[in-house]
């Protein structure tokens, strides 16, 4: 009991102190531009939060080194939003009402970004989510776009489009076979979009087979694939399913390339089995474009892992970096911090980011290139950039 009392006292003291400290800074200088970063630093996906924070902070530091935006120093306010609706909403309310923030970068998870977007939009605060892929982040339930909300990543179905384009144009595939888990919205979204676009481009989907997430035996579906002889198989599921299917396919002598989405991106992907396959992703550190090379170098110099080696930024860091940059660029172009003006600039912006060229469509989703990665027995290699 005594321990608990002591701790609660400590926490109360800490809270009062921090409140004082922040109260002090709010009243101060005028020449500051506050940007909030809502990242899940704790909760289920803390590594996502750290990457997002580091990526966004790096962009802000780079702008500050150049003299800030419109002569103002950029002050980041980092809040832990835990990838969970409640803490994210509290953090959003805190930064908007208490700190007077007009620009938010975050959240990472769609389920936290959606409630934050409701608050930000109603208060005229610009929010750019770096990585939330759910359509509802930028569009409300009635299908109307939320004017102040943007995102830096492409939404799920776009990967299906990119996969189809790559299969048809670069691999020269004329026929495709689609495998999907009907119960998984992510997989279904990608697969539907792939089939639609592949047929529109002139290809033919020769078969569609569904399975369930707990299946382990794919021999019958693979028998059908062997019979249908497609040029490619589209399998936009997570790595665990891909491992099973790819291994069983190899054993049946099916050497058709498999194509998937960012669900393949895992250290547990069975490289030997999936070799010869391709998947779409937001970004690749092997991309030779100068933006990526410079970003990689700067990031590695700024952030080190436990053993002191330069960190390799993941897709989350790259997207957060882009989100912060595109926001600051828009403020700079607008010449004002009036969010109504800034959002108009954002809608028309054409920004060269690490994860590709960013322009926004009518629903505030970026139209941008995707990285295509090839699976080789010794690792995942950058293959090409596919432009929309």
């Amino acid at each position, binding site marked *: 009991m005594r321990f608990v009392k002591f701790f609660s006292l400590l926490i109360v003291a800490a809270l009062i102190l921090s409140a004082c400290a922040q109260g002090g800074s709010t009243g101060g200088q005028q020449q500051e531009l506050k940007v909030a970063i809502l990242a899940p630093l704790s909760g289920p996906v803390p590594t996502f939060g750290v990457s997002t924070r580091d990526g966004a902070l790096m962009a802000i530091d780079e702008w500050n080194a150049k003299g800030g935006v419109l002569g103002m120093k950029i002050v980041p306010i980092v809040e832990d939003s835990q990838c969970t609706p409640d803490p994210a909403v509290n953090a959003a309310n805190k930064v908007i009402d208490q700190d007077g923030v007009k620009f938010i970068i975050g959240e990472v998870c769609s389920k936290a970004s959606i409630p934050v977007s409701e608050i930000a939009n109603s208060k005229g605060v610009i929010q750019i989510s770096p990585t939330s892929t759910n359509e509802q982040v930028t569009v409300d339930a009635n299908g109307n776009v939320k004017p102040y909300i943007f995102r830096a990543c492409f939404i799920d179905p776009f990967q299906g489009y990119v996969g189809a384009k790559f299969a048809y144009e670069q691999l020269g595939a004329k026929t495709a076979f689609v495998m999907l888990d009907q119960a998984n919205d992510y997989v279904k979204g990608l697969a539907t979009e792939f089939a639609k676009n592949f047929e529109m481009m002139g290809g033919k989907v020769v078969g569609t*087979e*569904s399975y369930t997430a707990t299946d382990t035996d794919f021999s019958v579906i693979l028998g059908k694939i062997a019979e249908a002889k497609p040029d490619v198989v589209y399998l936009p599921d997570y790595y665990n399913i891909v491992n099973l299917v790819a291994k069983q396919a190899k054993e049946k002598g099916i050497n058709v390339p498999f194509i998937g989405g960012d669900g393949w991106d895992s250290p547990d992907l069975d490289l030997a089995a999936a070799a010869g396959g391709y998947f779409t992703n937001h970004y690749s550190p092997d991309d030779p474009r100068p933006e990526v090379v410079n970003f990689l170098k700067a990031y590695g110099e700024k952030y080190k892992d436990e053993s002191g080696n330069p960190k390799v930024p993941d897709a989350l860091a790259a997207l957060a970096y882009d989100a912060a940059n595109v926001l600051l660029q828009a403020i700079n172009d607008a010449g004002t911090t009036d969010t109504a003006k800034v959002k108009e600039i954002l809608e028309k912006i054409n920004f060269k980011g690490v994860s590709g060229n960013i322009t926004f469509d009518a629903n505030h989703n970026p139209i941008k290139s995707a990285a295509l990665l090839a699976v080789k027995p010794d690792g995942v290699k950058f293959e090409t950039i596919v432009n929309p």
Partner: protein
Amino acid sequence: MQQVSGSSQVVIPVPKKKKQPPLAWVGQGFFILLGIVVAVILISNLIRQPTLFAQFFISGLQLGFVYAMIALGYTMVYGIVKLINFAHGDVFMVGAFVSYFAVARFRLHQWPLAVFPEISPGLGVVIGSLTVILLSMVICSALAITIERVAYKPLRDAPRIAALITAIGVSFFLEYFGALNFVFSPRFIPYERPFEVVAWYIKDGIHLIKPGEAPPDGAITFSNILVIIIVASILVQIFLQFLVKRTKIGIAMRASSYDKPAARLMGINVDSVISFTFAIGAAFAGLGGVLYAIAYSSIWTQLGILPGLKAFVAAVLGGIGSIPGAFVGALIMGQAEAMTMGYISTPMRDAVAFTILIIVLLIRPTGIFGEPEKEKV
């Protein structure tokens, strides 16, 4: 042996020309129609695309023989203690994990080559793989005996439903205890095989499929793991027939199954016979688990649920308590699943599997071999 008064198995005679409830013909007609439709679909597809049909049939064989190994455990345990041991599917899972750790962590499959570098690599792989399988079987047996002693034996005189619920509890315990990070972890783990899977195709004779080479049109492919599963499953079946019919422990098992108090009076230690039955069933589940993991090469802690339930359906279909029934039921289940995947759709496979359970319970609750069997163990 037709009338076994001491046995507590309730034999429900199938009414033949007795008074039927009105409109019973509607149900019968429905099932007959269903049977005809299934037969027509299968035969028309067999004529239209015989290779594809044969390929599905092979997939069904592989599933069916794996189910057979699990179903034996269900049916033997039911035969002797009238308990549906729902933890059996999870013992199967443990078997797969034991072999995974033996192979990936301790390289047990390579011990013959490490100890005797001169022997031929082929022989080394065979002995090493057999060691891994044996280890899994032994550990599964030990696990099953522990489960029986801890969870089922104290409830032997309790109502049967209490033991059934305990079995479900044990099943969940194994699944979620296994999912802890320091046990098996909740991830899908890529399984490292103790030996390489080699595939052949049948067309103008049997040819090896070389890596990176596609079999020609109209070829039927199969792998060495299919052959191993079939051989292992048949050996298990023969071994069990021998064990139950020809050995002392087999006689003791049959006696305990018919009448436990009388068996006790005859000097049979019924408790150890029951433990032995659990151990044998679990050993075969462990064998099935290893072969299943080798065949499908990805394991996680809930891998045993569906195969376990389907093997249970197979045991009911064949007539629970009957060993040949479990075998035949499992083969039918395998084919039903493969054909459903082939000609309806993959997600329907589970629905069809459990529809079979419902149909069996409706029209023939005793199963195919449901008449009291001599070797009912």
